[in-house]
């Protein structure tokens, strides 16, 4: 036990009962619940000092701008960025990845270049590259997985040659939980001069991340998966890479000067933030990382590892349950995909829901990975700071109900 059981009380949704049962929320990989401190930070901000940012000379706008920029600094310090200007706010990981693919890739990829991704990418780190490859003549290539669901690093090194312009990899798989060794991949990418893009949508909420040692050129993540609000995420980039990237959207806020026919861009990171940004959401994002830092990211990771080890052990004892992901908790995070005999994951999810256990069922926005695993879908349980062993016990018990109804075993 990791001693975070008291945190559950900070999350109002988890105090609810649904159908007379407590909520065993095991879908944080899709989106996390929010602590009171985040809700209050956003509410207070709207009540005390809301106005548009970077526009008015009046007191409210000045204050609002300060709070927005303070949020940027706070998110930057959370990942140990050396300067807040290295962080641009985006709508989420998806829009940040689109910005990188179109703004950097669309500008610099040439016919014959290769973009090296992995077989376990979320559609968000695949589809934008498909779009840009079609436009630029670049080709996509994929690093396979090993039989124990890890990234095949030997294959990665074999595939890395001077034609590879971009390596794009998830920091933690939202299906398998696999955490590939980013610093080692970064070193390999550097030897061929390839840009390294890390999709941190699952990694950043669950593990301590220091961009000064990570070795990536770009890192993206979404606030809503790390106790913060929807509608905002962050793009961190090395300053020289951010300078090389073209804005993807034009409009207000992102310009230095506008003539009728041409414009010049504002400095980074503002050139990537066209239009009125999600201001209160930035404030909520900062409150979320405050909360996580107060718990301590090492603690968060240890708590995930404890629950994951506990769950993997119990699931292994249930006949006909197959888990897709590394067995070794050091190589993975708290995302567990599984199937049970011939019970379809949607049926599992319905039955589990009736026992108060919320899990996700489906392809998890990773259809190529589902094909690689030879399953149409999986059920997925994922953990966060507010989960306890009681939630895992409820999952296991509910799986017993499912196996009884379907006559498995």
């Amino acid at each position, binding site marked *: 036990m990791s001693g975070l059981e008291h945190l559950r009380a900070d999350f109002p949704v988890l105090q609810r009962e649904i159908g007379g049962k407590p909520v065993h929320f095991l879908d944080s990989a899709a989106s996390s619940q929010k602590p009171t401190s985040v809700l209050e930070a956003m509410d207070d901000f709207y009540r005390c000092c809301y106005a548009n940012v970077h526009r008015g000379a009046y007191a409210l706008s000045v204050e609002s701008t300060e709070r927005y920029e303070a949020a940027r600094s706070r998110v930057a310090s959370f990942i140990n960025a050396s300067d807040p200007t290295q962080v641009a706010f985006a709508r989420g990981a998806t829009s940040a990845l689109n910005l990188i693919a179109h703004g950097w890739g669309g500008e610099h990829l040439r016919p014959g270049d290769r973009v090296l991704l992995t077989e376990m990418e979320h559609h968000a780190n695949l589809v934008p590259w498909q779009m840009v490859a079609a436009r630029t003549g670049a080709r996509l290539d994929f690093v396979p997985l090993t039989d124990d669901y890890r990234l095949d690093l030997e294959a990665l090194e074999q595939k890395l040659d001077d034609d590879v312009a971009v390596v794009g990899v998830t920091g933690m798989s939202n299906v398998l939980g696999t955490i590939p060794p980013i610093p080692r991949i970064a070193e390999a990418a550097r030897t061929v001069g390839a840009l390294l893009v890390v999709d941190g949508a699952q990694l950043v909420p669950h593990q301590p991340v220091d961009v000064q040692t990570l070795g990536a050129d770009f890192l993206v993540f979404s606030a809503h998966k790390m106790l913060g609000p929807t509608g905002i995420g962050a793009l961190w980039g090395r300053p020289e890479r951010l300078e090389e990237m073209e804005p993807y959207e034009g409009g207000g806020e992102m310009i230095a000067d506008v003539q009728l026919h041409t414009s010049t861009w504002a400095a980074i990171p503002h050139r990537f933030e066209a239009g009125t940004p999600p201001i209160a959401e930035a404030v909520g994002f900062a409150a979320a990382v405050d909360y996580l830092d107060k718990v301590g990211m090492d603690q968060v990771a240890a708590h995930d590892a404890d629950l994951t080890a506990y769950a993997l052990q119990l699931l292994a004892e249930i006949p006909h349950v197959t888990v897709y992901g590394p067995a070794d908790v050091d190589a993975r995070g708290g995302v567990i995909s599984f199937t049970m005999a011939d019970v379809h994951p949607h049926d599992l999810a319905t039955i589990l829901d009736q026992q108060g256990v919320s899990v996700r069922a489906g392809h998890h926005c990773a259809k190529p990975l589902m094909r690689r695993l030879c399953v149409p*879908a999986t059920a997925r349980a994922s953990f966060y700071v507010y989960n306890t062993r009681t939630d895992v016990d409820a999952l296991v018990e509910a799986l017993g109900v499912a196996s009884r109804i379907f006559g498995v075993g």
Partner: protein
Amino acid sequence: MSLEELYREVILDHYRNPRHRKPLDRADAHAEGVNPLCGDEVTVELAVTDGRISDVAAIGQGCSISQSSASMMTDAILGKTVEEVRDLIQRFKAMMDIDHEADLGLDPDRPGAVLGDLEALQGVRRYPVRIKCANLPWTTLAQALDQLSAS
């Protein structure tokens, strides 16, 4: 309502032993349905002789609700006229319509009450997110019928 009423014996039987799953050698109509949200897939093939469904296949993958609905559907439409099948689609959809009737009890006078095995799917109405699973084969069947009338 308990889960046992959703997952009736007959549903699990059709799920595990689906009827008419073999592609037809000669199909007069062929339609493919997918549920992009959950990935359920059903392909419906029809052969029509003298205005009647003389052969049918439903091939697919997905949850027990979509696949058992497809299997029961093939049993229900074989030998029926195209008109009768259209009527059956109407009645099935009416049975699955939660807005149709506030009462979710298993009322013997409901429009679906003469649907035989298919009535086992009434329990799905309690689980609104699963209704589209039950309906998928029927929507696909309707597309196949539209092809027949178009050709």
